[in-house]
């Protein structure tokens, strides 16, 4: 036994348990937490890798999950051909990523000097890649690529001369094909004969042993033991483990959807699984002998079981993190959900049925260990573990070489006819040993193949010379050294390194266009003059969401309205308990926890209506519950068809052919059953006396618990003033105030859409933001708060009234909330605003119709509204709206910078007035919270676009809701974690442009830099290039782009007209 594989039978200590828990936590950074779909939270699938540079994280992600982090080179070439990537930008990007060639390393060709940047540009644009000997033979003999034209036929000999390859030419190079068959037969006979010689046996054994030692050292890091053994034996061990985990996880994690619940879940996942698996017979079908006994003998602690399994699999302690990382990445969706659950102790289902990552991994590793043992036994007759298998391969090194190359699908073409027919042939047969020797012999022969240098070197130089328009004379005049220098320029940038360059060039065009438009807009209306110091008729505050950009623009065009953008929770992080609900919903970004619970209750004088509504809700719940149970009951479901089939059929016809009318009817019926009751919110904390009065009648223990619960409800006066002050200051709204200030949250409305929450407000944790708007408006209207605000320098006039509203982003309808609170004196203002909002909503719907596939092309505003409503009610609609798709930039600036600009619904707009923030504290809040959420949203869209199968959720058409918290494709597989294909693609073409978020901040560069220096998270985002940052100096009007290491690159005022001017540190 060598040191590569050390099995450690040591007993598990307390220190080991602590270490393994830490290792699990660190390993789980490779998978993003998956939030249940009812509160869809946009996230970066590589969030845990943000401490790495963007490109490095992408490589790591690819290694773990196989996901691509960039479009393919061919797709980028298509964008270049379409003009969506600019050639000039591509050259700048090459210079940035291959700085060694900037002005250096010119190559002489005859009288010409070839710029390496030209070579690299051609390489990116056309892909000057080597061709393997077989493929090259095919190109030359069958396709005749070297006989195409007179120039080509003259150029090829010149290329061979330049590379000094003329003397090594294979016979009949330029002749049409025909000799291959004969050559092949002769070659095969020679191979079989030579493979039996002692020299080849010894050489194959050496090669096999070298490979074995290398692979044993990688177990745990580059691959798991299950992956290794499974690939060698041609058995899908990882697939078997995944199927078992999906089976057990979906049963355990079910949230009330399953008719028959898994028993014992309250004991936690590991213990519940141990109890159930001990009675499970499926272990036998997996080939695990004595399965039930093995389960029963598992330790009581999951940590112990996990450590024992890893040690039995030969994983050294220092490779725990890498091993666990790979195991988690084999089902990133399920593992991500378990990760989220294990971090959400307040979550109802977690409280009831706890699950931790250590439980999940202990079970997973048990299957890995036992399936590996079963595979060793079945495939090689080796009883025992990895150690025994390693010993076996040391005795059969040629077999190892053969199996390994077969697993890699890297068998030389000449050897493939000799490949054993079945991977599970008995070792005694010797077929794999023989095949290993043949593989090795073919490798050696291939190295001496005269076609190799032709396909690798001459073909590349030939193509390059054509693109550079080099004449045969100029090529022939090159020295071998110069010719090789050209090739090494190509090799300096292999195809898998092109992604970052393409991405940079792709982003540059949008950045240039956006910045030049901002510059022009700023020039047309130099900031200060438009910064209103007079009282506007109305002001309204919207979420920064890209969808409100259009609504704000249209509203401002319709009438004299001033608008502001702020994160849609409006700075009040609340847990919200809707009227008649039992559970609280967190309405704030997931970066924070709700600071207090706000409860909705019937308004004073409306208690009777409230009681009726509660009774209606109770009946509604009972009827739904009964129907649902009957639907799922194995016998009653048949009777239900007879009883209610007609009704359901009618409903289905209505919903299919008359979706809007059908939904309106359903809504009316619902209102009859549950009559709407006017409500208000408890935004203030109860005073001590009042709280004690409320609990006076309770028993002492219940009294204490109730008092504690009351303590979590509402905010103190000081908190209320702080939240309103922070909100107003952050968006730069500190006066003058209009008579009417609208606070407008947003939500969505769609039918039969598991991704409904993805359309709601991200700043409210994937929920509608109406309650936050109501809370903000209620507090801001309180006299006592205005007194406190006045003391702090924010003077809100007595006649200013805050009103809450909610924008339905699917239908573009804006509903005024708590209208009862609006005094008569403000009715006129509200009426005018409501009329303008309706007009702005219609225009917004009209604009969106132009972007939505399947919409009327040039509808009137009214027709656009009707279409939007129909879309939202259509149960077969896979794309009710584009939501945040298309997002590209995040502008933190005064509205005057963007006023009047049509930004196409692609830009987050955060209001910020740098002049009112001398210390930068407001900017610090924006950069450390809303900007981070913007980055999550952007990265979710980016990765779902570049690799929808791995990082996205694939097509909605085959989605299947599982457990009430996620979707799978069809009947099995991993939980789909990203966005569905229909959310980012319009048919075969991309709707969302995969750009990294471009943050444009209107503030002095020094102020921005100071903030970055204070926060590691910002250094990670900007230095590692997860977000592109540009500052707009408000005084000079200049743009500077942030570069890693606190450097700023000056961009010209009109970035389209000139190139970067310089870098300063």
């Amino acid at each position, binding site marked *: 036994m060598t040191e590569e594989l050390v099995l450690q039978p040591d007993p598990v200590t307390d220190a080991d348990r602590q270490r393994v828990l830490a290792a699990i936590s660190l390993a789980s950074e490779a998978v993003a937490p998956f939030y249940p779909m009812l509160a869809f939270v946009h996230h970066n699938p590589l969030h845990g890798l943000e401490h790495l540079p963007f490109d490095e994280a992408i490589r790591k992600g690819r290694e773990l999950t196989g996901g691509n982090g960039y479009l393919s080179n061919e797709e980028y070439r298509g964008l270049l051909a379409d003009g969506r990537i600019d050639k000039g930008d591509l050259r700048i990007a090459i210079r940035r990523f291959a700085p060694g060639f900037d002005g250096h390393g010119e190559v002489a060709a005859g009288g010409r000097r070839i710029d390496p940047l030209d070579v690299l540009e051609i390489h990116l644009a056309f892909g000057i890649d080597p061709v393997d000997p077989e493929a090259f033979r095919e190109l030359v003999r069958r396709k005749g690529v070297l006989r195409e034209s007179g120039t080509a036929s003259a150029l090829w000999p010149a290329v061979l001369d330049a590379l000094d390859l003329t003397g090594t030419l294979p016979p009949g190079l330029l002749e049409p094909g025909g000799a291959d068959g004969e050559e092949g037969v002769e070659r095969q006979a020679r191979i079989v004969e030579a493979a039996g010689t002692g020299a080849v046996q010894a050489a194959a054994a050496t090669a096999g042993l070298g490979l074995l030692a290398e692979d044993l050292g990688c177990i745990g890091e580059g691959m798991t033991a299950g992956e290794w053994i499974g690939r060698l034996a041609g058995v899908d061990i990882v697939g078997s483990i995944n199927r078992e985990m999906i089976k057990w996880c979906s049963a355990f994690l079910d949230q009330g959807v399953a008719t028959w619940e898994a028993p014992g879940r309250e004991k936690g996942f590991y213990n519940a699984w141990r109890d159930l698996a001990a009675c499970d017979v499926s272990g036998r079908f997996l080939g695990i002998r004595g399965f039930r006994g093995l389960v029963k003998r598992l330790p009581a602690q999951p940590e112990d079981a996990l450590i024992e399994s890893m040690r039995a699999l030969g994983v050294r302690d220092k490779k725990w993190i890498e091993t666990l990382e790979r195991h988690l990445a084999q089902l990133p969706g399920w593992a991500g959900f378990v990760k989220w659950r294990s971090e959400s102790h307040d979550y109802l289902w977690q409280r009831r049925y706890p699950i931790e990552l250590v439980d999940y991994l202990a079970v997973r590793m048990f299957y890995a260990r036992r399936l590996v043992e079963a595979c060793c036994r079945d495939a090689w007759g080796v009883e025992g573990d990895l150690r025994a298998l390693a010993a076996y391969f040391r005795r059969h090194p040629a077999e190892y070489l053969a199996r390994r190359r077969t697993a890699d699908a890297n068998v030389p073409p000449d050897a493939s006819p000799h490949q054993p027919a079945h991977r599970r042939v008995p070792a005694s047969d010797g077929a794999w040993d023989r095949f290993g020797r043949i593989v090795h012999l073919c490798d050696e022969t291939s190295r001496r193949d005269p076609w190799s240098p032709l396909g690798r070197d001459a073909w590349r130089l030939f193509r390059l010379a054509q693109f550079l328009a080099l004449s045969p004379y100029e090529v022939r005049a090159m020295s071998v050294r110069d010719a090789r220098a050209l090739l090494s320029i190509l090799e300096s940038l292999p195809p898998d390194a092109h992604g970052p360059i393409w991405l940079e060039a792709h982003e540059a065009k949008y950045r240039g266009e956006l910045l030049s438009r901002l510059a022009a807009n700023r020039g047309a209306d130099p900031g200060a003059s438009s910064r209103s110091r007079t009282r506007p008729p109305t002001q309204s505050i919207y979420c920064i969401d890209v969808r409100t950009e259009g609504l704000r623009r249209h509203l401002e065009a319709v009438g004299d309205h001033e608008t502001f953008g702020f994160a849609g929770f409006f*700075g009040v992080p609340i847990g919200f308990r809707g009227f008649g609900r039992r559970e609280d919903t967190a309405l704030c970004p997931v*970066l924070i*926890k709700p600071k207090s619970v706000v409860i909705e209750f019937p308004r004073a004088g409306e208690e009777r209506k409230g009681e009726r509504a509660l009774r209606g809700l109770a009946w509604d719940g009972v009827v739904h519950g009964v129907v649902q149970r009957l639907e799922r009951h194995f016998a009653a479901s048949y009777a239900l068809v007879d009883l209610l089939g007609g009704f359901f059929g009618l409903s289905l016809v209505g919903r299919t052919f008359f979706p809007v009318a059908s939904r309106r009817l359903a809504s009316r019926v619902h209102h009859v059953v549950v009559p709407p009751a006017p409500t208000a919110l408890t935004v203030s904390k109860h005073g001590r006396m009042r709280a004690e009065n409320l609990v006076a009648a309770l028993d002492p223990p219940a009294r204490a618990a109730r008092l504690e619960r009351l303590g979590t409800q509402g905010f103190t006066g000081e908190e209320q003033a702080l939240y309103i002050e922070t909100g107003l200051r952050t968006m730069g709204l500190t006066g003058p105030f209009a008579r009417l200030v609208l606070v407008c949250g947003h939500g969505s409305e769609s039918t039969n859409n598991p991704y409904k929450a993805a359309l709601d407000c991200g700043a409210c944790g994937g929920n509608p933001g109406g309650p936050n708007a109501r809370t903000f408006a209620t507090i801001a209207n309180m006299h006592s708060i205005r007194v406190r605000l006045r003391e702090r320098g924010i003077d809100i006039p007595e006649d200013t009234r805050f009103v809450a509203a909610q924008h339905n982003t699917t239908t573009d309808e804006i509903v005024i909330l708590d209208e009862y609170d609006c005094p008569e004196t403000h009715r006129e203002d509200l009426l005018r605003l409501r009329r303008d909002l309706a007009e702005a909503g219609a225009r917004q719907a009209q604009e969106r119709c132009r972007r939505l596939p399947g919409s009327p092309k040039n509808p009137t505003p009214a027709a656009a509204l009707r279409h939007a409503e129909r879309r939202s009610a259509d149960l077969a609609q896979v794309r009710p709206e584009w939501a945040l798709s298309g997002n590209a930039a995040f502008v933190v600036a005064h509205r005057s910078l963007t006023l009047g600009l049509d930004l196409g619904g692609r830009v987050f707009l955060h209001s910020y007035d740098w002049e009112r923030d001398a210390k930068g504290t407001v900017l610090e809040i924006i950069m450390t919270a809303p900007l981070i959420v913007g980055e999550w949203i952007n990265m979710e869209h980016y990765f779902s676009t570049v690799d929808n199968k791995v990082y996205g959720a694939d097509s909605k058409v085959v989605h299947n809701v599982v457990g009430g918290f996620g979707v799978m494709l069809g009947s099995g597989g991993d939980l789909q974690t990203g966005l569905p294909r229909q959310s980012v693609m319009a048919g075969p073409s991309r709707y969302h442009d995969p750009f990294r978020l471009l943050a444009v901040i209107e503030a002095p560069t020094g102020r921005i830099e100071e903030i970055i220096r204070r926060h*590691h998270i910002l250094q990670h985002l900007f230095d590692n290039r997860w977000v592109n940052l540009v500052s707009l100096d408000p005084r000079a009007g200049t743009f500077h782009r942030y570069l890693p290491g606190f450097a700023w690159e000056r961009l010209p005022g009109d970035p389209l007209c000139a190139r970067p001017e310089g870098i300063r540190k």
Partner: protein
Amino acid sequence: MSDASLIPMKMVEIIMSGEDLHLVEKLLVKAGASGFTIVPNVSGRGHHGSHEGHLLFNDMHTLDMLFSIVPEDLVEPILAGLGALFERHSGMVFVSDVWVTRQRYFKQYANHAL
């Protein structure tokens, strides 16, 4: 410290990122610590520069402090877990001698249950 009613114990003080707070709590409970105190959003200066704790709407990227009083035999396993964490993440651990009057408050949990 000569008072016989004082019992020697160890105090473990940990300063870590808000993102790691949950894990650190879990490690301490699993190790058998009977309790701990958290000081959220601390500020200060260290080898990564200064941290001012200005974050208002972000609980994940704060610096938090946690301290726990434990019997001496728990220190080694606790440090094993924290050591693994801080090999990759930034954070600090201090262990110091303390004396307590009511030992029963700092007894180890029997079942390491969360």
